[in-house]
């Protein structure tokens, strides 16, 4: 986890000089590990997000979304690549999501059991097209989680191999039946 977070931080440093990081000595549980420019998320919300992405793509025999820092990628993308209104919608939705969790499970998402988390996500999937902020939050987070996962180094070197230098183009080759990959 530490390694993955470090690499996410390295990437963040790479992209934006405007992003500052809190010194380790100032970090405590209520602060997020990333200082973001446009959206404010505290440490508990970041942890909740980590469990949410993990519920969307859980660890099995292969890594889950949390281990691939999909929650940090989600924060970076939300902070840098979305419009102000969308950021606000997402933040409102995040809070509404927490409340919905308490209502359904009687406790926060972080303290919920995996089964309780799944129960909440089942209701989110059922309300996929709802116009409210909570649905926007869920749709966007799920989209970014999938993006983070399928464009990660893990995925592109182990599952769907990305070739930087193909050195070939064949215009017509037999379409091989794909063997089922175990996720």
């Amino acid at each position: 986890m530490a390694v993955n977070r470090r690499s996410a931080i390295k990437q963040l440093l790479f992209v934006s000089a405007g992003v500052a990081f809190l010194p380790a000595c100032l970090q405590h549980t209520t602060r997020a590990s990333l200082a973001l420019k446009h959206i404010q998320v505290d440490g508990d919300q970041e942890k909740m997000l980590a469990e949410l992405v993990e519920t969307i793509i859980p660890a099995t025999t292969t890594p889950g979304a949390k281990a691939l820092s999909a929650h940090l990628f989600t924060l970076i993308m939300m902070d840098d690549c979305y419009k102000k209104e969308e950021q606000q919608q997402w933040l409102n939705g995040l809070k509404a999501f927490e409340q919905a969790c308490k209502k359904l499970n009687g406790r926060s998402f972080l303290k919920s059991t995996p089964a309780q988390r799944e129960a909440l996500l089942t209701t989110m999937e059922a309300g996929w097209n709802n116009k409210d902020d909570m649905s926007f939050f869920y749709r966007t987070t799920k989209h970014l989680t999938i993006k983070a996962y399928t464009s990660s180094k893990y995925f592109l070197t182990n599952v769907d191999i990305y070739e930087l230098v193909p050195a070939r183009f064949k215009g017509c080759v037999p379409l091989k039946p794909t063997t089922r990959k175990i996720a």
Partner: protein
Amino acid sequence: MSNNNTSLQNRTFDAIVIGSGISGGWAAKEFTEKGLKTLVLERGRDVKHLKDYPTTSQFPWEFPHRGQVPQEIKAANPSISRCYAYKEDAMHFFVKDNDHPYGQPKPFDWIRGYQVGGKSLMWARQTQRWSDFDFEGPARDGFATDWPIRYKDIEPWYSYVEKFVGISGNKDGIPHLPDGEFLPPMELTCVENYFKDFVKANYKDRQVIYARCAHLTQPQQIHLDQGRGQCQKRDLCQRGCPFGGYFSSNSSTLPWAEKTGNLTLRPFSVVHSIIYDEQKGKATGVRVVDTNTREMMEYYANVIFVNAAAVNTNLILLNSTSHRFPNGLGNDSGVLGKYFAFHNYRGHISGQYEGFKDSTTDGRRPTSAYLPRFRNVMKQETDFLRGYAAGFSSGRGSHTDTNGFGKSLKEQLFNSQTDSAWFVGSHMMGETIPKEKSTVTLDANRKDEWGIPQINIDLDYDDNDEKMLKDFFEQMTEMYTKAGFTNISTGDSKQAPGLDIHEMGGVRMGLDPKTSMLNKWNQLHACTNVFVTDGACMTSTSTQNPSLTYMALTARAADYAVKQLKKGEI
């Protein structure tokens, strides 16, 4: 000049080339090879081949936003953000909207690359020759003015540059898209070959061919001598190629020129104007603003090539005023900055093909198939002038079921499915008619940060473009339908002029000094030691991607200029 420490001698050259892009690089190569001490002025920073391609070997996961441009940058730069290649991996090679503001009475997306190599770093590398059906177009169809050259004038120069650049292509034997000096083609897909055969069998006047492109599919000695190697089919060209697999000034002409020992490359040098000597009756040099020191300095030479890219070439000439030329250098006719034009890229069409279900492609291909112009070629046959070419590409896509969450979603992500059918798609490349009212002009009040008047670009689509767009939709839909393509859908991007990145004209060539700026050698009629060989020189636009023609015109003009210099004519 007392305002700088460089001696007059150090600021005097045989030739000055303004701009280091695809045509400026060729001027530099030709002059230095022929022994001329040559100064190349580039307004932007230096970009050295291999060394200055920071993203070239990055994997997708190494881009913090996986290729996406951050929202703040997009919002601040609407024009450049509309460019297909302006993504996280290549955005450092594009000029931001406000780095050099311009006036656009009607929307114009001005896509620029201010750096050594210019846009040759990020170009789409398509290299189709013109024919006499293009050069004779304005005279036959009665628009613009007659070209002062014909195909036979430029033919040997096409061959000359093609051999050095390295063009991959087939000899197709098409009268209006002449064959050239080709390296082997890359493969077409089964669907492209099918469509090619279908069109050949069903349309006497239409062809589908492999698009000729500036890629080294089989490097020859001349390419190895440039330090370039075989195209590795990365299809990441816009980042700069670590193999030198495609042609750019950076990988080819500029290092070649440098090897002669005759090249002086000066980045961070914005040309303010060309100095005209009233006594001598010719240009003697250029005024340059050093963008680091903001100092204005002068450089001198016997011959000046203006290759600043179409809009900025117009700007420099318009700003080069003197007692003799109060309206801009060489502008006795008043046509400077007029008859500006572009390519109509608004139309696109897509569909599916249900055949070849057991086949797919393997690897990547940095080019496509191509339909040469088939409208109004041999004679006028529609209610609009000229015509369009079209790209054609196909592939076997895949899709991923993203429903649900948890283990089932993960299984789905690991097992994306090949699409049941092939996709097919085309985009139009339409000729537009250069009109007197389509202009680039200097703003009377606003100046840029170098003290140079701001340029205003004023042009729009016309009825001819709308009719042509409609015809593209009709003809392509008919061909797609007859070929058995399904789920056909057409779209009008309604994109502004400029986004085609094929802006041309304003300093057009012509036979008559009263109606044109340049003669058949790309020489200003009225100031014969100044040549313009970039997009600004174009009398008409035709449909082909224009860079190959700029390169050929440049090599031809440089050869002529050197001969004239030796004769003492200029």
